[in-house]
């Protein structure tokens, strides 16, 4: 083989240039894998389109979410910087001059998302505050020299971006191998002077601070910097602050306390720290879900299981939005890759157009969809025949079904949000606090069959008036904002309810009057009569309690919500053609995103039948047959041992098993040679187990190996 050698570990293959030019377009990989499936090119294009839209949407969301944070940061930078350059005669200013303005930016534990946030921060700063924005990572700066080197080289780059004219001066400095703070400040002076050579010196101090823009240094992962480097840098740069206006931004993943843990008081007193908190990643997720999935903007949808897996990975593994998006991308890709009818997963007019061009094969595919078959079964027999035989009729029907599906989604999300309004503030959150939990439940089954839903209705029946009205108000806004005509009545109805509630106020007063008049009727009587009348009143009140107008109205509202839910929140798998839009293969997603290599290894060793479907390997629980692959047998035997394993015993046990297996098939080889071979097989199995990390050689005892796992695995 060309790629194995005893002297080399890397092999470069470079086909000649002409050949390389004929590179295969990506679409080809999309269709070749599945042998000539339908419309693969179109599907791939749709995939790319939707993915691009989703991606830009998430980026936009990210920007929006970070806007507040960035605004306040920019403001902080501007004020602190202007403070720095005011006339420095003041004593307090003198002190301030020694303090480096610092923004501690608490970003949360989702380290993987920080990069994106900080990158957009850099952009914002470059646009609004200063061209000199440098971000450093701990892994680039193991010591002071590298730190300064990186800082200088990045600063030069910034400069080049802004003004390419000054290349000469930049190059001069870059040749300078010796980086120091002095050279930096000298560079800074030269650069700032050069930018505005016409501006007289006096003016600079007074009018605008922007002639001398600050240098912003972002330390991306403050925690992992070496303390020594940080301390030294801060001390040195505070000395130079008057000629080199530095502003620090610390990216912090844990908590702000870490600053004081890393820096001693003497150093941290040189900083003027202000704390900024970024949006929590959970809120971020909620927005992303809200804008990507709970909307009709994107036709692509996730089934309950898939959504569950993605959110679980997010909540229990990494809190990383980026990973969540990656999961989304993968499911989108898988959907378009595996489902030929996903070609219909686009906006409605386009889908309708595409239906017209569907091939006969694709029509068959539609007929094969389980949801469509269920739908056909419900139709009258003539229609059934027509659907199953005529492609034209089928296409028309598909068009209308698809339209229904889109309408269904439109209503679905409205009603879902409406229901969320009602349930999100109930005590104990029976249907979850976040809309994603509610969504998952609704996707899974008929929500009204669940116990939680029943308890929600119970709780709704106990709501006070103002709470109920607030909820109704919100719902009203929701329905009004949507342009859909289908639910126009609903908005009207809610408005009516609201009006009724308002008019209740007046009525309640009257009611009070009547009850008062009743109480007036209580007159002096003997004990017996008193008791009797009290009992009567009690009965009266208990009956009248049900009858209060408010309660009646509340009951009406609850049943109204209930009817909405029952009508519109049907789970999607009841809808014909839902397979075209919903990605449901949760298994593949889990396999590729959240794999368990250890379990796979163990299964392969412990139960080879799982992979090799040979009847000879079938065995009862836990045992493995002696014909199993050598490594499985060796593994099984090693499980019996404690910390150390005697190789001799192991090899003999192995030989016993293997000879027993070989006895069955006739063997012509002489026994000595056979023993040799078995020994060789044992050696192979052992070294494979070593490679896999189950055992390692040990010096504790001769010819022993140490076991690296314990218990069963």
């Amino acid at each position, binding site marked *: 083989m060309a790629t194995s050698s005893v002297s080399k570990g890397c092999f470069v293959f470079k086909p000649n240039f002409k050949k390389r030019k004929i590179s295969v377009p*990506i679409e080809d990989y999309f269709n070749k894998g599945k042998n000539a499936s339908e419309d693969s090119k179109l599907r791939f294009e749709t995939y790319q389109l939707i993915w691009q839209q989703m991606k830009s949407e998430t980026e936009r969301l990210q920007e929006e979410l970070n806007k507040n944070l960035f605004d306040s940061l920019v403001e902080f930078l501007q004020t602190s910087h202007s403070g720095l350059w005011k006339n420095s005669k003041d004593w307090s200013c003198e002190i301030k001059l020694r303090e480096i303005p610092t923004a501690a930016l608490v970003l949360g534990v989702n380290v993987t998302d920080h990069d994106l946030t900080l990158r957009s921060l850099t952009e914002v700063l470059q646009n609004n505050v200063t061209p000199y924005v440098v971000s450093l990572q701990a892994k680039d700066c193991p010591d002071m020299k590298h730190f300064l080197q990186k800082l200088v080289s990045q600063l030069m780059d910034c400069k080049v971006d802004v003004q390419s004219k000054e290349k000469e001066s930049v190059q001069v400095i870059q040749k300078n191998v010796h980086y120091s703070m002095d050279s930096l400040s000298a560079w800074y002076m030269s650069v700032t002077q050069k930018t505005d050579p016409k501006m007289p010196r006096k003016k600079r101090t007074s009018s605008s601070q922007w002639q001398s823009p600050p240098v912003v240094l972002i330390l991306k992962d403050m925690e992992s910097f070496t303390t020594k480097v940080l301390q030294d840098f801060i001390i040195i740069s505070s000395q130079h602050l008057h000629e080199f206006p530095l502003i620090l931004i610390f990216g912090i993943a844990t908590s702000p306390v870490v600053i004081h843990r890393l820096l001693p008081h003497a150093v941290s007193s040189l900083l003027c720290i202000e704390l900024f908190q970024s949006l929590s990643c959970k809120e971020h997720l909620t927005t992303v879900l809200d804008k990507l999935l709970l909307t009709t903007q994107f036709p692509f949808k996730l089934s309950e299981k898939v959504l569950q897996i993605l959110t679980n990975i997010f909540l229990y593994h990494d809190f990383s939005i980026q990973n969540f998006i990656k999961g989304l991308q993968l499911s989108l890709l898988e959907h378009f890759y595996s489902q030929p009818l996903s070609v219909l997963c686009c906006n409605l007019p386009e889908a309708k157009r595409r239906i017209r061009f569907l091939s006969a094969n694709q029509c068959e595919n539609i007929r094969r969809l389980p949801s469509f078959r269920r739908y056909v079964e419900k139709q009258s027999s003539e229609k059934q025949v027509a659907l199953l035989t005529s492609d034209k009729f089928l296409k028309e029907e598909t068009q209308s079904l698809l339209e229904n599906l889109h309408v269904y989604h439109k209503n679905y999300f409205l009603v879902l949000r409406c229901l969320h309004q009602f349930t999100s503030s109930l005590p104990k959150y029976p249907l979850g606090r976040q809309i994603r939990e509610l969504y998952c439940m609704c996707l899974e089954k008929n929500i009204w069959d669940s116990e939680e839903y029943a308890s929600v209705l119970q709780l709704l029946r106990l709501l006070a008036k103002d709470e109920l009205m607030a909820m109704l108000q919100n719902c009203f806004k929701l329905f009004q904002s949507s342009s859909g005509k289908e639910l126009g009545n609903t908005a009207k109805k809610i408005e009516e309810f609201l009006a009724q509630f308002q008019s209740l106020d007046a009525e309640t007063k009257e009611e009070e009057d009547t009850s008062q008049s009743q109480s007036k009727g209580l007159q002096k009587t003997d004990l017996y009569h008193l008791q009797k009348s009290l009992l009567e009143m009690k009965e009266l009140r208990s009956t009248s309690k049900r009858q209060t107008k408010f309660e009646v109205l509340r009951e009406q509202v609850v049943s109204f919500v209930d009817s909405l839910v029952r009508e519109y929140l049907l789970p999607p798998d009841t809808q014909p053609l839902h397979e075209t839009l919903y990605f449901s293969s949760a298994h593949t997603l889990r396999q590729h995103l959240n794999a368990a290599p250890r379990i*796979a290894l163990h299964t392969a060793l412990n139960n080879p039948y799982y992979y090799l*479907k040979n009847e000879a390997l079938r065995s009862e629980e836990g045992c493995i047959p002696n014909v199993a692959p050598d490594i499985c047998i060796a593994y099984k035997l090693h499980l019996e041992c404690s910390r150390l394993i005697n190789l*001799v015993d192991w090899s003999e046990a192995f030989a016993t098993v293997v000879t027993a297996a070989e006895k069955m098939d006739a063997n012509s080889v002489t026994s000595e040679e056979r023993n040799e*071979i078995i020994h060789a097989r044992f050696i*192979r199995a052992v070294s494979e187990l070593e490679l896999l990390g189950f055992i390692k050689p040990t010096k504790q005892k001769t010819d022993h190996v140490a076991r690296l796992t314990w*218990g069963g695995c």
Partner: protein
Amino acid sequence: MAKLASELAKTPRKSVSLNMKNDPKITIDIPQCSKGHSSSDKSQLKNNDKSEFLSTAPRGLRKRLIVPRSHSDSESEYSASNSEDDEGVAQEYEEDTNEDILSQKIQAQNREVSAPVFRETPSKKMKREKTSHLVEKYFEAHSSSKVLTSDRTLQKLKRAKLDQQTLHNLLSKVSPSFSAELKQLNQQHEQLFHKWMLQLHLGFNIVLYGLGSKRDLLERFRTTMLQDCIHIVINGFFPGISVKSVLNSVTEVLDHVGTFRSVLDQLEWITNKFKEDSSLELFLLIHNLDSQMLRGDKSQQIIGQLSSLRNIYLIASIDHLNAPLMWDHAKQSLYNWLWYETTTYSHYTEETSYENSLLVKQSGSLPLSSLIHVLRSLTPNARGIFRLLIKYQLDNQDNPSYTGLCFQDFYQQCREAFLVNSDLTLRAQLTEFRDHKLIRTKKGTDGVEYLLIPVDNGILTDFLENEEEEL
């Protein structure tokens, strides 16, 4: 272990022969077999007629063998696997499993099969005990410093260590089993090739895991899909591999002449190059990304950064049990992995061939033949010096605190044997030895140099015997 071995040895036949084994003679055999420790047991087994021992089924052991098979509830449910002789418990289990499907068989065979105990026990209880069991298992395994194992060594066995070549020859005689099934497995994996290409192009990187060498699979992937692309194959299992060499081969592709001051510089250069030229595409195939040489934090960081470039497509395989621990969240997001399980059951021939494997004659430390070879090329005096050192080392082989022969003493001895006349000549000789990795020097706590031969004592004894024969 011997018990288990005999147990495993007979497993495939069991289902067939279970009911025929009502022979009273065998049932008498059982108590004998299940008592005693492995070594005594083994000798007994050996004396026995093979067919007879094949049919025995020690009871306590049978219980131990029982390990739930389910794929999902993996690691921790093997609570019964390590417990030592617990006949009483086994008894209990037998009573528990009266309703078991196999109970008839049990009765018929008079306790010969103590039945899959855990299959029927309620799993809830098991799960609750799961974690605590796992912890206990750890402490059980590591509690006492002494471990009871037999003292037998490979030296006594004649066929102790084979060298790589004989091993290879011997193994080539073994006819592979289950080839049909293996082929089917491989075909399943091969169907994924197009999908891999697609996903690689869309910005994911692919990592393969699962038992068996994935080298052939990747090689096939390379030959079928990557013929027209620039690609680099990296053998992670190659002992001399390093990130530096990986980066070097990347720069080689980019036609760079000259050197870089540091790995980081090189990485930066590559990054810029790829960012500038978007038509550049590069496939990286790494066999064993988790190998000794590449698993370090820095190496992984750099490879991760490389793989995060948009036009570098990485497809790698991992084998080690704990390989995923190499990556924290930051690295994982750099790699942007898609995991693919590709269990192949192929042998790790290439991967283990470099390895100083346990039973294969070690190549890192010196095997006998090369020892002889080197020494033959030396002067008689040098040989004498070396023999002196060997003898001293062998005399001290029972001394656990032996650190080596002090240079001064060695010089004294050599002088007395008229082998050298000044310590300079001795030092010259030693340099020669050192160049051949025949000796190692170590500074002791007192600042004195100690000399040690880093070769197994057994080999040294063999060597001396050899020498004497020749003389």
